[in-house]
C-alpha cells in the first residue's frame, strides 16, 4: 500500500531529539575537536538515557519494538544535530545481528546493548565490502585469530567488537571483548574523531565467542545494507541542516541593496537542494521499509548511489551560496561537509553498487 504517513511514534522520535539536542551542536567545541584539542561528543549518552538504544529491541526484551523506518527517522534527526557515537554499530551490527541469529540465546547481550551496559563497535560492513575476513585457526580446540582490521571507530567507548571470521571456509560471527586487542595504528578523521586499525596475531579466544551463522551471506549483506542506509539517513539529516543554515543566511544577507535570497539564480539552487533531499530521503526510507523483501539489496544500493551523488552536491552548492563566509573554519559549514564526505567514503563506491544492480554477464 502506498503510504507516506509520518506516524505518531515517528513524530515522537523527532520531537524527543529536537528537545534534547537543539542546543548541543556547539560549533566552537566541534571545531576544537576537529583541530585535535578536545574529544567533544554528544548524543550517545543522551540517547541511551531516552531508551533509544533499544528502539529495535523487542518489547519482550524491554525494548521499544520499533521498525527500521522509525530507525531511519531517528538517524535523520541524529545527523541533523551532528551527534556522534556508536549508535549504528550498536543497533545494526549488535542488536539486529544478534536478534537475527538467535534472540533467545543472546537475550542478555541484547538487553545490555539496549541500555548501553555494553557497547559494540564493528567491522562487519567493511569486511563485507572488502571480502577480507579474519582467519580462525583451530589448534586442538584452541582458537586463534589472525588478520588485520582497519578504520574502526568508537574503539575507546566500545566494550566489544563484532567481526567476521573464516573457519574451515565458513563465515562466523565473532563477538570479541575489546581487552587485549592491540591497536596497530591510531588516526584522526576529517572532523577529529579517533579511528583505529587493529592487528590480531595468534589472538587466543574462547570457543563460545564464535557464532555459527545460518545463511551467513544473507545476514552479512543485510548488516552491510542496513549500515549503509543508516549512514545515508544520517547524511540526509546533515543536509537538512545545511539547507536550514543556507536559507537562514540567504534570508538575512544583503547585497546589491536587497536580500540575496531574492535572486532567482540563488533561489533555483535552493530548490535543487530541496529536491535532492526529498528524493533521496524517500528512496532511503523506502529501502528500509523493504528490509524483508527480495528487492532490499537493490534498493539499498540505489539509496547509496543517490546519496553519494546528490548529497555531496548539496554541500558544494551550499558553500557556493554562502560565499566566503562558508569557506571559513569558524562558521562551521565545513563540519557538515566533511561528515558528508566521510559517510560517502564508507560502504562501497559506484562501481561496487552498480555491479550489484547489473552483474556482469547475466
Amino acid at each position, binding site marked *: *500500500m*502506498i*503510504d*507516506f504517513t509520518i506516524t505518531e511514534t515517528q513524530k515522537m522520535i523527532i520531537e524527543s531529539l529536537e528537545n534534547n539536542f537543539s542546543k548541543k551542536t556547539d560549533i566552537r567545541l566541534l571545531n576544537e575537536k576537529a583541530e585535535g584539542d578536545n574529544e567533544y561528543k554528544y548524543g550517545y549518552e543522551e540517547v541511551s538515557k531516552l531508551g533509544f538504544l533499544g528502539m529495535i529491541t523487542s518489547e519482550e526484551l524491554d525494548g521499544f519494538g520499533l521498525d527500521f523506518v522509525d530507525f531511519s527517522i531517528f538517524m535523520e534527526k541524529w545527523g541533523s544535530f551532528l551527534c556522534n557515537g556508536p549508535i549504528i554499530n550498536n543497533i545494526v551490527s549488535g542488536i539486529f545481528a544478534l536478534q537475527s541469529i538467535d534472540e533467545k540465546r543472546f537475550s542478555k547481550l541484547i538487553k545490555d546493548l539496549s541500555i548501553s551496559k555494553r557497547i559494540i563497535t564493528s567491522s562487519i560492513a567493511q569486511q563485507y565490502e572488502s571480502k577480507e575476513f579474519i582467519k580462525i585457526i583451530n589448534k586442538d580446540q584452541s582458537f586463534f585469530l589472525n588478520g588485520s582490521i582497519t578504520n574502526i571507530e568508537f574503539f575507546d567507548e566500545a566494550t566489544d567488537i563484532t567481526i567476521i571470521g573464516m573457519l574451515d571456509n565458513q563465515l562466523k560471527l565473532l563477538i570479541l571483548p575489546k581487552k587485549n586487542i592491540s591497536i596497530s595504528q591510531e588516526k584522526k578523521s576529517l572532523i577529529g574523531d579517533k579511528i583505529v586499525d587493529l592487528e590480531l596475531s595468534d589472538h587466543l579466544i574462547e570457543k563460545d565467542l564464535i557464532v555459527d551463522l545460518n545463511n551467513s551471506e544473507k545476514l552479512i549483506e543485510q548488516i552491510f545494507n542496513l549500515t549503509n542506509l543508516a549512514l545515508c539517513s544520517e547524511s540526509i539529516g546533515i543536509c537538512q541542516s545545511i*539547507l536550514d543554515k543556507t*536559507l537562514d543566511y*540567504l*534570508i538575512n544577507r544583503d547585497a546589491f541593496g536587497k*536580500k540575496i*535570497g*531574492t535572486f*532567482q539564480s*540563488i*533561489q*533555483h539552487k*535552493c*530548490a*535543487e537542494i*530541496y*529536491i535532492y533531499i*526529498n*528524493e*533521496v530521503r*524517500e*528512496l532511503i526510507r*523506502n529501502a528500509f521499509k523493504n528490509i524483508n523483501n527480495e528487492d532490499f539489496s537493490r*534498493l539499498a*544500493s*540505489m*539509496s547509496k*548511489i*543517490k546519496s553519494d*551523488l546528490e548529497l555531496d552536491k548539496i554541500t558544494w552548492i551550499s558553500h557556493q551560496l554562502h560565499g566566503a563566509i562558508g569557506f571559513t573554519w569558524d562558521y562551521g559549514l565545513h563540519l557538515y561537509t566533511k561528515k558528508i564526505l566521510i559517510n560517502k567514503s564508507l560502504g562501497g563506491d*559506484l*562501481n561496487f*553498487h*552498480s*555491479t550489484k*544492480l*547489473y552483474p*556482469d*554477464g*547475466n
Partner: protein
Amino acid sequence: MFSSEDLSFKKELNSLIDKHLPEDWQEYPDERLDSHWELSKKIKSELANKNWIAPSWPKEYGGLEEDFSKSIILSETMAYRMAPGNDRFGVRMIGPTLLKYGTEFQKKKFLNEITTGKSQWCQGYSEPNSGSDLASISTKGEYEEDSNTITINGTKVWTTLAHRANRMFILVRTQPDSTRHKGLSLILLDMNDPGIKVNPIKNISGKSSFNEVVLKNVKVSAENVVGKLHEGWMIALDLLNFERSGIDYIGWGERCLDDLVDYCYRNDLIKENHIKNKLALLRSDLESAKLMTYKALWIKEQSDEIHMEPSISKVLATETNINIHDFAFDLLNTKATFLNTKNKDSFAERVIKNRLFFVSGGILGGTTEIQKNIIAQRGLGLPR
C-alpha cells in the same frame, strides 16, 4: 508498495493492452494518426466497460471507489506500454478538479462522460503571449446576466489533442479591466460549439499533437463555470497540481531504461564500467523520481493544502526521462539518427523520436524553472 490485489489488476490491465497493441509496438501514441486514434478509442472503451478509466472515483460517477494505487498503476502501465487511450486531461486534470469544486450538474454530466470513454478533453490555458506567466492571459469572456451566458473571444495555443477533443477546460478573463490572477474563470467548453477553430502546429518530432485554438464569439452557459465566476485562479492552479505528478514520464522513462539495459546485455556493453555505472545512476534516479511521483499523488489524496511534492516530482520525472533517453541516444549513436530506413532499428528510431518529443516535458504544465520558483518561494519561504 503495491498489494497483491494491485498486482493482479496490473496483470489484467496488461492483458487488456496485449489484446489491442501489436506485438512489436514501438511507437509513442500519436493521436493525430487515425490508426492511433481508433486504437485509443478501442482501449478506452474496454477500460470503460470494466470501470477502469478512473478506478478511484465514486461509483456514481463511473469509478470503483478503489484505493488510488490502482490509478497510479493504470497511468504508469499505459505509459510504459506506450498505449493510446490514457486520458490524462479528463481523468487526471479536470476530473479531480470537478470532484473537488464542481456542481452536481457538472459532476454528473462530465465525470460520467469521462468514465464511459465518451469524451476527450483538452486544456485551454496557454496563449500566444501567456505561457509560463499564466496570470497574464487575455482571452476574454463577456458575461451576460439576462441569458446567463459567457461569450468567449481569444486564442489559446499549445493545446494538446485539441484536434481530437470534444471538450476543453479553458481559463478566461471574465471580469473586464481585471489584471493578473483576479477576474479569471475556469469554464467547460464543448469543442463542437460554433466559433471554435483548431489549427494544428507541427512540433519538433514532426507530429502535430498540439494546436492553436481560435475562439470567436463562442457562447457557453454560465452553469459551465467551475467554482465562482471571476474566482477561477486558485482552482486553475490546483488543477495544475493534478497535472504535475509526472507519472507518465516515469512509465516512459522506465520502458526506455529497461530496453536500454536489455540492449547493453545483448551487445556485451554491460562489462564496460562507465556504461554499467551510468545505467545504475539512471535506475536510481528513476526509482527516486518514481517514489516522489507516488508521494505527490498520495499527498493530493490526503489534503487540499498546496504542497511542493507535485513540483518536485514534475522536475524529477521529466529530467530523469530525458536523461535516460539522452544516454540511450549516446549509446545508439548514429543508429538513432536514421528514420524509416529499410532495416530500421525500431528501438533506435523510438529513442530519437521520443527524445525530441520529450523536450516538451520540461516546458508544459509549468516549466522546470517555474517549478523551482514555486519550491523556493512557496516551499522554502525565500523572498520574492
